[in-house]
C-alpha cells in the first residue's frame, strides 16, 4: 500500500444557519429525515472517515443526494465543514487562512467539473492556461505548458476556438487539460464524465487512465456510475445519505457487499468481466496451465474448462505461483451472494 495522501476524519456537514448546534444530536443518531422535519437542517455528511492513498484513484460513489459532491468540495474547502478534520500531507487544511488556502488551491489541488465550467469568453488555450495565469506565471511559460496539455488530451489545432464551438467531450478535455496544467498532485473530479454520452465517456476514461500511468496523481473521482467506478477505481467508497457504507477495492465490493443496498447496487454488473481470479483463489497449486491473478472470470472459465481436472494455478505479475482456482469456485462466483434472499422476488 502506498502512503496516505489525504486523511478525512470524523467529518460532518450540516447545512443550515445553526449547523454546529446539531452536531451532538447527529452523533447521538438523529436521522436525516428527523433533522430536516423538526429542525429544517440538512445532514450533508455524517461522520466520514477516509484515508486516500497517494498516487491512486479513489472513487467515491453514490446516488444523487448521497453527499458525494459535498464531500469532494470539502477537500479544497469550497464548502466549509461543520466538524471534523482534513489533512493533506499531514497539513491541516481547515486551519489555513484565506491566503494559505488560495495557495493550497493553486499548487496542491485542481478540479474538473461535471458541467465543465469553462470560461466562455476565453479561448481553449486561455482556459487551459487559467490556473497558471492567476498564479502569475510568465505568459510564455503558461502558453508553452498549456500547449503541451492541449496536445496530450488530443485537442491540438483547437487552441484558438471558444468553448461554445466545441462538443461536450471536447469541452471536458479542455477541463481536464486545465486541471492538469497546474501540475497539482491532487486531482478532484466531480462527476467529470457523467454529462457525456457513453462512448465519449469510455474515451475519456481511457484518456484519464492513460495519463495516470505517467502522472501518478492522487485522484479523487466522484461518480454515480458503478461500471465507471469499477473500471477506473483503485479504491471505492460508497456513500449513502452522507455516510460511507463500504470502502475497499473493487473486488472486495463485489465479492463482499456490506449490505443489501450495495448488493442491489451491484446486481446488474457483468460479474464475469469484473471479478478477477485472485478474489476466488484458494491455497495450493495445480499442475496444469496457470492464470494471471488479474485475469477475469470470463477468460478463466474457458481455460479451466479445458483443463483435465478443472483447476489452474494463479501467478502474480512476476510469474510466481501464489495459489489455485477451480472451475466450481469460478462458477460459484458468477452468482451473487445472498442470492437466496432475492429468490422469492425473482421467481
Amino acid at each position, binding site marked *: 500500500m502506498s502512503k496516505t495522501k489525504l486523511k478525512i476524519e470524523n467529518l460532518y456537514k450540516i447545512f443550515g444557519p445553526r449547523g454546529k448546534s446539531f452536531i451532538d444530536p447527529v452523533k447521538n443518531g438523529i436521522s436525516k429525515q428527523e433533522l430536516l422535519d423538526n429542525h429544517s437542517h440538512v445532514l450533508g455528511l455524517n461522520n466520514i472517515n477516509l484515508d486516500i492513498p497517494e498516487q491512486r484513484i479513489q472513487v467515491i460513489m453514490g446516488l444523487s443526494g448521497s453527499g458525494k459532491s459535498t464531500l469532494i468540495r470539502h477537500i479544497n474547502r469550497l464548502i466549509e465543514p461543520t466538524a471534523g478534520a482534513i489533512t493533506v500531507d499531514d497539513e491541516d487544511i481547515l486551519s489555513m487562512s484565506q491566503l494559505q488556502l488560495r495557495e493550497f488551491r493553486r499548487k496542491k489541488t485542481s478540479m474538473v*467539473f461535471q458541467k465543465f465550467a469553462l470560461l466562455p*469568453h476565453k479561448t481553449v488555450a486561455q482556459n487551459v492556461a487559467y490556473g497558471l*495565469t*492567476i498564479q502569475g506565471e510568465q505568459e510564455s511559460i503558461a502558453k508553452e505548458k498549456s500547449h503541451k496539455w492541449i496536445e496530450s488530451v488530443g485537442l491540438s489545432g483547437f487552441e484558438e476556438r*471558444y*468553448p461554445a464551438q466545441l462538443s461536450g467531450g471536447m469541452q471536458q478535455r479542455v477541463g481536464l487539460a486545465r486541471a492538469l496544467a497546474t501540475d497539482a498532485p491532487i486531482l478532484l473530479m466531480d462527476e467529470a464524465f457523467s454529462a457525456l454520452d457513453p462512448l465519449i465517456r469510455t474515451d475519456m476514461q481511457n484518456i484519464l487512465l492513460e495519463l495516470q500511468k505517467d502522472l501518478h496523481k492522487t485522484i479523487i473521482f466522484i461518480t454515480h456510475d458503478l461500471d465507471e467506478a469499477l473500471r477506473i477505481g483503485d479504491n471505492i467508497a460508497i456513500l449513502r445519505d452522507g455516510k460511507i457504507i463500504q470502502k475497499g477495492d473493487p473486488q472486495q465490493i463485489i465479492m463482499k457487499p456490506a449490505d443489501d443496498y450495495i448488493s442491489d447496487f451491484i446486481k446488474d454488473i457483468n460479474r464475469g468481466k469484473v471479478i478477477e481470479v485472485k478474489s476466488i483463489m484458494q491455497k495450493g497449486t495445480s499442475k496444469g496451465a496457470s492464470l494471471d491473478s488479474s485475469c477475469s472470470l470470463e477468460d478463466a472459465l474457458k481455460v479451466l474448462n479445458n483443463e483435465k481436472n478443472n483447476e489452474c494455478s494463479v501467478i502474480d505479475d512476476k510469474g510466481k505461483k501464489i495459489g489455485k482456482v477451480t472451475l466450481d469456485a469460478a462458477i460459484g462466483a458468477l452468482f451473487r451472494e445472498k442470492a437466496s434472499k432475492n429468490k422469492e422476488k425473482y421467481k
Partner: protein
Amino acid sequence: MDWLSEFPSLGKRDLRDLKKGIDGSFREWSRSNGDAIEAFFDPLYFFLVWLEKLLIATPWPIILLIVAGLAYLGSRSWKLALGSVVSFMLIGYFGMWKDMMATISLISVSTLICIAVGIPIGILMSRYDRVQSAITPILDLMQTIPIFVYLLPVVMLLGIGRVPGLIAVCVYAIPPIIRLTNLGIRLVDKEILEAADAFGSSYRQKLFSVQIPLALPNIFAGVNQTIMMALAMVVIASMIGVKGLGMPVLQAVQNQYLTLGLMNGLAIVALAIIFDRVSQRYGQRLQAHRYGKEHE
C-alpha cells in the same frame, strides 16, 4: 365627533413654520456652502465648456468623419455609419449644428460620469448584500421622484447653468447602469465562479477576469439605457439653462412655434436612435463568444 371626519393634522401655523424653518435653514446652508460646492464642481464645468467649444470649433467635415468612424467601429455596419452621417448633415442643414454639439457634449460627459460612478457602485452592490439593500431604495427614489422636486435644491445650491443641468441628468440617468452592473455580476454562472475559486483566484482576479467580462452584455445594456435616459432629460435640463437642442423645444412650447419644436424634437430622436443602435450593436458584439459558430 369632529375628530372622525377631519384627519388629525399639524396645525396650519405649525406646518407653515416647519416648512419655513427647513427652507430657511437650507437656504442659509446653501448660501454659506454654495461657493465651496460650486468650486468642487468647477473642473466638471470647465471640462464641459471645453468639450462643447472643441466640438463647435472643429470643422464640420472632421466631425462627420469622426461620427462615421465611431459609428462603424461600434456597429461594424456601413449602413449605420452612413445613416448617422446623413442624419448629422440634415440636422446641420436645418441650422441646429451648434445646438447638437452642445447636446452631444452634455450627453457624453454625463454618460461618462454615470459609467465612472455607476459601475463601481454596481460592483459593490453585487459583492455585499447589505450594500445592495441599502442602495436599491435610493435608486427607486431616484427613478420615481418627480424631476422638478430635486431640480429645485440643485438650482438653489448651484444656480442655473450647465453644471446643475448635468447633475440633474446624471441623477436621472445613473440608476440603470448601477442596477444592470449589479444584476449582470450576480447572474454570472455559479459553477464558473466555483471553478475560478477552485483554482485559487483572488477576489480581484475573479472580478476582472471572470465576473466583469461575463457581465459585460448586461453592463452594456445599462450603458445603453443610461444614454437613452440622459437624452430624455435634454428638454427638462434646458429649463435650468442647459444649452442645446432642448432649449428651442422649450421656446417652442412656450410660444407655440410648431415647426421649431418639431425640428429640434426630431433631431433629439435622431441622436437617440444613432446612440442606441450603435451602442446596442457594440454590446452584441461583446458576446460573440456565446454564438461561437460565427467564428467558424
